[in-house]
C-alpha cells in the first residue's frame, strides 16, 4: 500500500482514528510520517497532542493538503495542531474554517450565547478584490475568503471542502 501523502513510497505507518463514531484511516511512509509529527501525536498522549491528533483525523477525507496559511502573529496551522494554542485574536479569523468543527467537538456548540453587553469591536472592511476572468476554483476561493471575513465559518468549511474536491479532481486528471 502506498503512502497517502507522497503516493510514492510504501506505507509503513497505519493510523486509525475513531472520532464521533466515524472511522478514518491514514497510511504514511516513514519519511512523511516524520514530517507530519504523527508519531509524536500518537505516542505523546499529552492533552495538546491528543487534541491535534483529533483535529487531523476528524474532518479529513484521507488526502491532506499542506495548509500554508500564516496569521499576522506568525501562528501556523501546523504549530497550532502541535501546541493546541492560538497566537492572537486574529487567529480565530485566519483559521476559522478549521476552528469551527473543532469547537463543535469540544463544546458541542458553535454560536456564542451570552446575555451580557459586549464591548464594541470594529471589524476591518474586506479588501476590494481585483477581478480578472476567474476560474471555477478561483471563484470558490474568493467566496471562501469572503465567508471568513464575514465570520460565516460553516459556509467557509463547505467551500473549503468543495475546493479540495475540485483540486483533487484536477490533479487526478493531470496524473492519469
Amino acid at each position, binding site marked *: 500500500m502506498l503512502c497517502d501523502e507522497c503516493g510514492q513510497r510504501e506505507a509503513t505507518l497505519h493510523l486509525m482514528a475513531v472520532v464521533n463514531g466515524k472511522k478514518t484511516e491514514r497510511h504514511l511512509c516513514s519519511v512523511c510520517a516524520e514530517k507530519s509529527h504523527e508519531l509524536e501525536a500518537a505516542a505523546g498522549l499529552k492533552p495538546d497532542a491528543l487534541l491535534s491528533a483529533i483535529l487531523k483525523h476528524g474532518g479529513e477525507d484521507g488526502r491532506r493538503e499542506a495548509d500554508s496559511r500564516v496569521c499576522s*502573529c*506568525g*501562528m501556523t496551522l501546523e504549530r497550532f495542531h502541535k501546541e*493546541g*494554542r*492560538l*497566537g*492572537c*485574536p486574529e487567529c*480565530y*479569523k485566519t483559521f*476559522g474554517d478549521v*476552528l469551527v468543527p*473543532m*469547537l463543535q467537538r*469540544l*463544546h*458541542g*456548540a*458553535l*454560536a*456564542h*450565547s*451570552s*446575555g*451580557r453587553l*459586549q*464591548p464594541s*469591536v470594529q471589524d476591518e472592511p474586506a479588501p476590494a478584490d481585483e477581478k480578472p476572468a476567474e476560474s471555477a476554483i478561483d471563484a470558490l476561493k474568493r467566496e471562501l475568503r469572503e465567508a471568513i471575513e464575514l*465570520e460565516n*465559518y460553516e459556509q467557509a468549511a463547505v467551500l473549503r471542502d468543495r475546493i479540495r474536491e475540485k483540486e483533487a479532481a484536477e490533479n487526478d486528471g493531470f496524473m492519469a
Partner: protein
Amino acid sequence: MTDSWLDGHGPDKDVVISSRVRIARNYAGLPFPHMMDEAAESAADEKTHVIAERLSGGVCERMSDMSPFRRRALVENHLISNDCADNVKNGALLPIEGQLANIMINEEDHLRIQAFRQGFDTEGALDLALETASAVEGTAELAYSESFGYLTCCPSNTGTGLRISAMLHLPALCITGNISPTVQAIGKIGLTVRGIYGEGSEALGNIYQLSNNITLGHSEKELLDSFNAACLQIIRNERLLRLLLFKNRREEIEDRIFRSWGLLSNAMMISTKELMNWLSDVRLGIYYKLFPELDESVPEAILSRALNGALQSRVNSPLSGSELRQERAKTIKSIIRGI
C-alpha cells in the same frame, strides 16, 4: 485579601471547602502571552497598569519580585495557578481591593479574573467575577467576536471564558470506592473531577476539584445551573455515604479517625502525605462531632500554613526535607492549641 482566606465557614462547608469562578479575557489587538515580543509585552503592561489603578489600588505584584516560597504559598492557598507561579518572566497578580478576588496576569491569557467564596457559593463567586470582568471591560478593549465570544489562547476556553469550580472533601465516596463511578458520570455531562493535591491521579486528602469543561454555546447562567445541579448531587451522595459509614462501620471509622488525630497532634515529624491523610480523617471526625473542643477553622488553617511553600515563606529560606517535617509538626501543634 490575606493568604489564609479560608477559615472553615460557608454554606455546605462540611463537603464544599470553597467555590471559585475564573474568567479568561485577552486584550484586543495583541498576541496572546506566549507569542508576545517585547513591544507587545510593554503594550500589555501599560493596559494592565490602567486596570491596576482602577481595581487594585495600583498594586501589581510581579512574580519576579516574589521569592519562590511566596509563590508556592500562593498556589497552596489556591490564589494562583502553577502556571502563573512559574511565569517569572512577565507573570503578575492584581489583588482586587476589598474583595475576595484577584486577576492573574499573563498566564495562558492576558487576564484571568478569579473570584473566591467559602463553602458552596458558586453564584456569589460568579457575581463577583462578572462584576470584576465588567470593570475590566470598561477600562480596556478586549478581544471578542460575535461568533466565538471572548477570544482565548486555547480554544477550549473560548466563548464565555468561564471556569466554575468547587473544592470538595469526599472521604466517604473514597472509602467506599465510589469515586471512579462519580468521575465517569461527571465526565458525561461536560464536567471534570480531579484530585487537587498529589501527582497525577492521586487525590491526597480526599480533596477533589469539580469544574466545567464547556465554555461555548451556553450562557454564564446556564453553565452555573448545570454545575450547581451536579455539585448538589455529589454533596448528597457524600452525606448519605457518611451516614451509612457511621451506621454500619462505626467502630472502625471512629478508630481510624482517632488514630489519625493522635498522630496529627503528637507526631514530631510529619510529611505532606501524612498530613493530608490524617487531616482528611480529622475533618470527617469534625463532621461526626467527635471533636467538640476543636475549632472549625483548624483544618483550613493547617492547610494554609503547614505546607512546604508556607513553611519556607515564613522563614524566607529553603528547608531540608527533615526540617520541613519538623516545622510542619510544630506548626500543626500551635494551630491546634490556638496559638
